[in-house]
């Protein structure tokens, strides 16, 4: 099988954090990603769908951290996107680690939720399902063509509790104390999805990481402004770069004295604590409470997740 060539800088980058384990990390970066689906309970009866798929020969394995998540072990043989169940909106292809930020946000039916960078809507449609299509979600993105995909996915999944908006997320800073919950699944360097798309590597550079960190700091500030007191923000990225992760949380803790980071735990998932130091710069020790998910830990894409509460 064809394998990606990892840039030398990338290969060396996390050796200081991982030591000997760096080799295993790089090996996982080159392995294709396991395919998974989420059963969309807005339209489907989960039991019925799972048994219909199994009858058709799909080999399914439950994702331990989400009741409706399944790995499709013979995905190369079953053509998920061409299945009747996909057409009907009963299943939605979604990577297993990408199911985590909504789980940690844990929305309730009556909540007013902002999904600040929502397209193409994997997490929005999951949030809608967790809210039983009740309450209200504002699904925002700034990219017109990605919004098209978002609207398509919302319609296929039968989501009615969602408003789609097109704004630069930064402007939510003007809408003070509006939302009960905010998900900021930020635009990022995407190191964590190398396994899905090796193209990511052609754009990867430390310079790009630093530019993105600037954007993310602006967005997290807006997310905190638009959150009601007592509300929760989940900040997530699919990258491992500390500048885009712990560095952004550290920035928020400096800028706002009315937030705190909350410890999270998810059953069935292996994760590591956020790191307190990177390339000679130390972060507020609160960032230890964040979640770092390496590809080798659960054989998924990489993720970073922080749960922040506004006081």
């Amino acid at each position, binding site marked *: 099988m064809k394998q990606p060539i990892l840039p030398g800088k990338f290969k060396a980058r996390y050796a200081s954090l991982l030591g000997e384990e760096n080799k295993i990390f790089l090996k996982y970066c080159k392995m294709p990603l396991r395919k998974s689906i989420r059963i969309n309970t807005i*339209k489907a009866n989960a039991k019925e769908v799972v048994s219909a798929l199994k009858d*058709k*020969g*799909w080999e399914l394995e439950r994702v331990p951290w989400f009741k409706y998540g399944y790995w499709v072990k*013979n995905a190369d*043989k*079953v*053509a998920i996107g*061409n*299945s*009747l169940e996909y*057409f*009907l*909106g009963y299943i939605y292809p979604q990577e297993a680690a990408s199911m985590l930020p909504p789980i940690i946000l844990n929305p309730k039916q009556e909540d*007013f939720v902002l999904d600040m960078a929502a397209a193409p809507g994997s997490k929005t449609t999951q949030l809608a399902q967790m809210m039983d*299509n*009740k*309450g*209200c979600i*504002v699904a*925002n993105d700034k990219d017109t063509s990605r*919004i098209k995909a978002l*609207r*398509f996915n*919302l*319609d*296929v999944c*039968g*989501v*009615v*509790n*969602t*408003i*789609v*908006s*097109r*704004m630069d997320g930064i*402007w939510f800073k*003007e*809408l003070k104390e*509006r939302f009960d919950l905010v998900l900021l699944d930020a635009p990022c360097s995407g190191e964590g999805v190398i396994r899905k798309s090796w193209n990511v590597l052609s754009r990867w550079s430390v310079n790009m990481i630093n530019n993105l960190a600037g954007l993310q700091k602006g967005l997290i500030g807006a997310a905190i402004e638009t959150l009601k007191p007592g509300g929760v923000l989940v900040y997530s990225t699919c990258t491992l770069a500390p500048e885009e992760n712990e560095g952004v949380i550290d920035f928020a803790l400096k800028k706002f004295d009315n937030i705190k980071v909350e410890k999270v735990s998810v059953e069935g998932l292996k994760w590591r604590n956020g790191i307190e130091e990177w390339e000679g710069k130390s972060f507020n020790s609160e960032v230890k409470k964040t979640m770092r998910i390496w590809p080798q830990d659960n054989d998924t894409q990489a993720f970073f997740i922080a749960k922040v509460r506004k006081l």
Partner: protein
Amino acid sequence: MNRAKIIKWMEQRFGINRGIFKGYAFIIKNGKVWLTSREVMNRELRGIKIESVGLLFGRYSERKGIFKPTTNALQIFGKYASRNIVELNERERDDYLTGYDLEKQCDAGEGYVIIKYKHHVLGCGLYRNGIIKNQIPKARRRYSVEEV
């Protein structure tokens, strides 16, 4: 076009009880009908640049006096229908989802019909002179048939 007309249309054409739409709100604008919940309409939305609200439920032409439900709407509400339903066999299903029209005698009246396979609502069709004209949006069609 207004809420009462849409609900009446769904009832007359498909026998869908009007009570089903109780918790929902319709937004009717520029030839399109969007479906959302009443809860959504009560939120503070000032300052948000809205592209769309809820799910695209149907399209209408005031001039031609026609209303057409979307496949996505029928996938949600089709299960409550009692008439103008066309059931397909497996081969017809695959043809329909790939984008073909179907030649088929059925006891539906001319006009929009609900296309079903077993207990699954596939979507919308347009029945006329023994032909079901395919109404599945292009982006939703399948171009090949399942392997397993």
